[in-house]
């Protein structure tokens, strides 16, 4: 057998040298095995971290995405759909949390809807993990914590941190270039695993494409009128603290933006670019009867200029480096010593949902959407997100499921 070139340069001679080499190899291999086992165990555990959901008083049914399209049935992305149905008939709204699980305020806001909301009129369908695969992994090189905990009056609730892209363990390999269906627009290869670049999906595509296709089937079969997609954005990204609206939802979004800015917090509004494909605010509007709106809350934890990447930074949203970038005029949102705490970001989303449904009901009184029991921005900021998370231990039997 040939020795690989260069490997014999410092070969030790004699039995003693061989023994030393063998001992060294054994020690190194043991260290390697320990690193493999401990890191692997950490990845394995965080991938399977159970996230309990207490079914609030308004949840009337829990279905799964696979019931609408067999192509995702039994897969990691066969996520749960929480139906909140009012006694009065009305429209149907779908709220997507977890399109990008590394933007946790969107998921948490959706959690508050499920655990607290009641529909007085119309139907609300809530998704907590739109890309469940992406909740099981964190961004390579991002140094994000695997999970984070929200303090509550009865203890704390722990959630998976998640990534922007589906887990490569569920979808691999990536293509040389990602060509979006059906527009054929060229996108970054990694975005074939980005749920907000694969709308409207295709039935025989990759897992992420099949997931968006399944959501389109849900939207079509349930006659969804309105889709609200909850996100967060880095402060150095121009699309922030805003609603991105398909042209079908132009007036609705404009009113929501004005109302929120007048009464609760600054919220911008912009149109979905017609030439940018794969995004929910473009494709759902183009390929179904529904009006899609996407909401962006500010999240300094995503900025490339951020400082220490810790659970604390995720929850407080405070960061001196991002603040310094803001002082240099490089940000598209203000950043001061108060930062952007998780409660502020979650509250922005709950209020955005509530105000959107109120404006919708004004616009379309024949298809009302009246949601009760969900805290508004001021309530979440005052009492904290955890105040509105229910205790699984004291929930009635059969009213707890796991995401």
């Amino acid at each position, binding site marked *: 057998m040939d020795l690989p070139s260069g*490997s014999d340069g410092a070969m030790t001679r004699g039995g003693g040298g061989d023994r030393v080499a063998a001992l060294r190899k054994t020690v190194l*291999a043991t260290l390697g095995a320990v690193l493999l086992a401990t*890191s692997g165990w950490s990845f394995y555990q965080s991938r399977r971290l159970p996230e309990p959901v207490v079914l609030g008083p308004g949840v009337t049914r829990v279905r799964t995405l696979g019931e609408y399209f067999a192509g995702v049935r039994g897969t990691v992305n066969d996520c749960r759909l929480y139906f909140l149905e009012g006694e009065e008939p009305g429209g149907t709204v779908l709220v997507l949390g977890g399109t990008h699980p590394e933007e946790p305020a969107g998921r948490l806001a959706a959690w508050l809807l499920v655990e607290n909301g009641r529909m007085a009129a119309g139907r609300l369908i809530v998704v907590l993990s739109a890309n469940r695969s992406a909740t099981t992994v964190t961004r390579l090189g991002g140094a994000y914590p695997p999970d984070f905990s929200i303090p509550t009056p009865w203890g704390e609730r722990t959630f998976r941190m998640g990534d922007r892209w589906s887990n490569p363990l569920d979808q691999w*390999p990536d293509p040389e270039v990602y060509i979006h269906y059906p527009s054929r627009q060229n996108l970054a290869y990694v975005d074939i695993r980005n749920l907000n670049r694969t709308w409207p999906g295709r039935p025989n595509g990759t897992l992420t494409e099949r997931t968006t296709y399944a959501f389109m089937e849900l939207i079509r079969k349930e006659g969804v009128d309105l889709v609200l997609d909850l996100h967060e954005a880095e402060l150095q990204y121009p699309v922030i603290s805003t609603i991105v609206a398909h042209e079908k939802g132009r007036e609705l979004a404009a009113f929501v933006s004005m109302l929120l800015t007048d009464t609760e917090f600054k919220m911008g509004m912009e149109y979905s670019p017609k030439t940018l494909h794969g995004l929910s605010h473009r494709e759902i509007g183009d390929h179904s009867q529904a009006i899609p709106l996407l909401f962006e809350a500010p999240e300094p934890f995503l900025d490339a200029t951020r400082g220490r990447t810790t659970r604390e930074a995720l929850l407080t949203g405070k960061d001196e480096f991002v603040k310094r970038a803001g002082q240099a005029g490089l940000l598209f949102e203000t950043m001061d010593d108060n930062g952007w705490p998780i409660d502020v970001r979650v509250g922005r989303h709950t209020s955005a949902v509530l105000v959107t449904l109120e404006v919708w009901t004004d616009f379309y009184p024949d298809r009302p959407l009246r949601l009760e029991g969900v805290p508004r921005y001021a309530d979440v900021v005052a009492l904290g997100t955890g105040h509105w998370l229910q205790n699984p231990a004291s929930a009635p039997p059969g009213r707890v499921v796991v995401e």
Partner: protein
Amino acid sequence: MVLFQGVITFLYYLLVACAAGLMLWNLLRSRRWEEEVLYLLVVLPFLLRLFRLK
């Protein structure tokens, strides 16, 4: 198509297994500690993927 994609994914695991095997083989033949450490570091991601841990 979904089945075909599954086959492709399997081929990738095979590719990763082959690469990891070659690295471990070279590691065993190596006589330089720096090279051995480097092989252990380089093979780590291949093994994590092969065992479906990351």
